[in-house]
């Protein structure tokens, strides 16, 4: 009873304080290369506007744009976070989850209570599942545990016969032979990745350079904005370049708060990524973005955002770094939480979806109304975004805030279908051209 009263009092206080923030703008004003950036606002309490996860009931599915259709490739996963397609068409699904964060402040205890409802109730599988749909009817005949006993697996990359898996704390190499449905050989560690007890942003995105000599791993920050101390951020908020032969690494690019969806743009061989930017500066700050990633580039975090806009929450400041902070290429608008990206290289989807990038937006928790919870398409021309993002797959969240699912990682399968890992929905969706 006391607990319920406390919760009720907390909710009332939350509503009262959250009402103090600025009104959100139309999120579309922040989509594109030149987003509108409002004045920053530091809350007494950020609006905890969290979707309640209800999952999909039989027959329910996301909504797709005209000319497309969507089907569940497979259901019943334990927190599927990313998908990867092998050359023979087999689909790998990483069931993955992060650590339970430590409670360093009363805030983290309270936010933990709130955020619990926005995540899947089932423990993540911490493994990779293989799906094989050899006859292409959209219903896999083979479903096997491909690699078991992993630790927060997210990134996957095959180079020759070496399959690399980015666990949350290491890049592992597994021997792969075409057609294998299970790997029981233990992985060989290529390199450790920053993890530790906090491990705030734990997903480690992974891709290989076009020539196969290097791996690139996204390593997110260990905090929202250095509230766990600068020491905790060593080698984080960066994209690592890892030498495939030796495991040696260097920081390829820095200042990227939480980079995911690492992919080389197929025509230009330039590395692109989607970045989750910082919270608690208002409903429309800071925009999450997709960007080409320059060797040696610094993209602002934690000292500044969207180029040289200073963040007052960071001490000591670093004007030397801010002076060379790169303005990202393309804003996706604030708090959409992009976690997956893929350039469409297939031939199944209508012409309007060819050559550009799909982005999976996991969805916001601190913005009212919600933002994200969808897959968007950004057209490209000449290796650069060339137009406004279009909603492609929506309906993950209902108007009343019940979330059926949340899109995360994306991939294009061997027949040109777009695959979407839906973590809380426990499903891998497949989008193809409509009948």
């Amino acid at each position, binding site marked *: 009873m006391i607990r319920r009263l406390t919760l009720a009092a907390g909710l009332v206080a939350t509503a009262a*304080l959250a009402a103090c923030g600025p009104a959100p703008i139309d999120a579309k004003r922040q989509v594109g290369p030149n987003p509108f950036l409002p004045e920053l606002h530091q809350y007494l309490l950020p609006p905890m506007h969290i979707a309640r996860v209800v999952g999909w009931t039989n027959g329910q599915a996301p909504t797709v744009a005209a000319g497309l259709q969507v089907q569940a490739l497979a259901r019943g996963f334990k927190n599927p976070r990313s998908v990867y397609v092998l050359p023979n068409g087999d689909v790998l699904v990483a069931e993955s989850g992060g650590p339970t964060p430590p409670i360093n402040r*009363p805030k983290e205890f309270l936010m933990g209570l709130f955020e619990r409802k926005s995540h899947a109730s089932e423990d993540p599988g911490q493994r990779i599942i293989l799906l094989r749909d050899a006859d292409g009817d959209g219903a896999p005949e083979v479903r096997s545990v491909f690699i078991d006993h992993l630790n927060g697996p997210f990134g996957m990359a095959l180079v020759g016969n070496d399959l690399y898996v980015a666990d949350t704390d290491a890049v592992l190499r597994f021997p792969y032979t075409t057609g294998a449905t299970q790997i029981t050989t233990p992985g060989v560690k290529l390199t450790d990745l920053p993890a530790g007890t906090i491990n705030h942003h734990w997903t480690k995105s992974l891709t290989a350079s076009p020539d196969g000599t290097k791996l690139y791993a996204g390593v997110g920050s260990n905090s929202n*904005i*250095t*509230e766990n*101390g600068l020491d905790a951020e060593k080698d984080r908020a960066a994209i690592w370049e890892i030498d495939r032969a030796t495991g040696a690494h260097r920081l390829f690019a820095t200042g990227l708060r939480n980079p995911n969806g690492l992919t080389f743009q197929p025509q230009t061989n330039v590395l692109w990524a989607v970045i989750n930017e910082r919270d608690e500066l208002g409903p429309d700050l800071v925009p999450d973005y997709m960007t080409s990633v320059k060797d040696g580039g610094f993209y602002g975090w934690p000292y500044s955002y969207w180029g040289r806009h200073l963040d007052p*929450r*960071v*001490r000591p400041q670093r004007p030397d770094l801010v002076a060379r902070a790169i303005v990202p290429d393309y804003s996706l608008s604030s708090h959409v939480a992009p976690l997956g990206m893929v350039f469409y290289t297939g031939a199944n989807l209508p012409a309007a979806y060819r050559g550009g990038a799909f982005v999976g937006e996991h969805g916001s928790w601190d913005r009212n109304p919600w933002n994200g919870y969808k897959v968007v398409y950004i057209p490209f021309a000449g290796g650069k975004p060339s137009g406004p993002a279009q909603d492609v797959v929506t309906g993950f969240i209902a108007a009343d805030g019940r979330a059926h699912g949340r899109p995360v990682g994306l991939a294009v399968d061997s027949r040109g279908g777009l695959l979407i890992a839906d973590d809380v929905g426990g499903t891998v969706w497949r989008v193809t051209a409509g009948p």
Partner: protein
Amino acid sequence: MSDNPRSTVRIAGHPIHPMLVPFPIACFVGTLLTDITYAHTARMQWANFSVWLLTAGLVMAALAALAGVVDFLGDRRIRNLRAAWIHGTGNALAVLLSIVNVFVHSRDAYTSVVPTGLVLSAIVVLILLVTGWMGWEMVYRHHVGVAGEDRP
């Protein structure tokens, strides 16, 4: 039987309120000290100390306030004291400011303390100097809750 103003919330004649007040006072003074240290060092550990001290201070302040309000309502002779009114309203203000302060301290990194949090912590300590003085006046001058000797 003494004729002193009586404490309503007491155990074996010992008033509870004066046993509780040292906790929030020490916590809120501690908050100011760790805030000052954070402002000088920008090491998050000190800001974390501050927000835990604030939280603990508020919990204990709520208990102390409960005992204090009941005592205040329980004896008209207490309500007739000017010191009791200054003590009560001042402490209510200190608690309200500390509630705002715990939210400010729940921001991330530097602006969880500097400047707003630090200023609020300092104002609260200044208020406590006045209300503490008034509390002692109630006991040592007006013998509120004191057993034995009658007040002069």
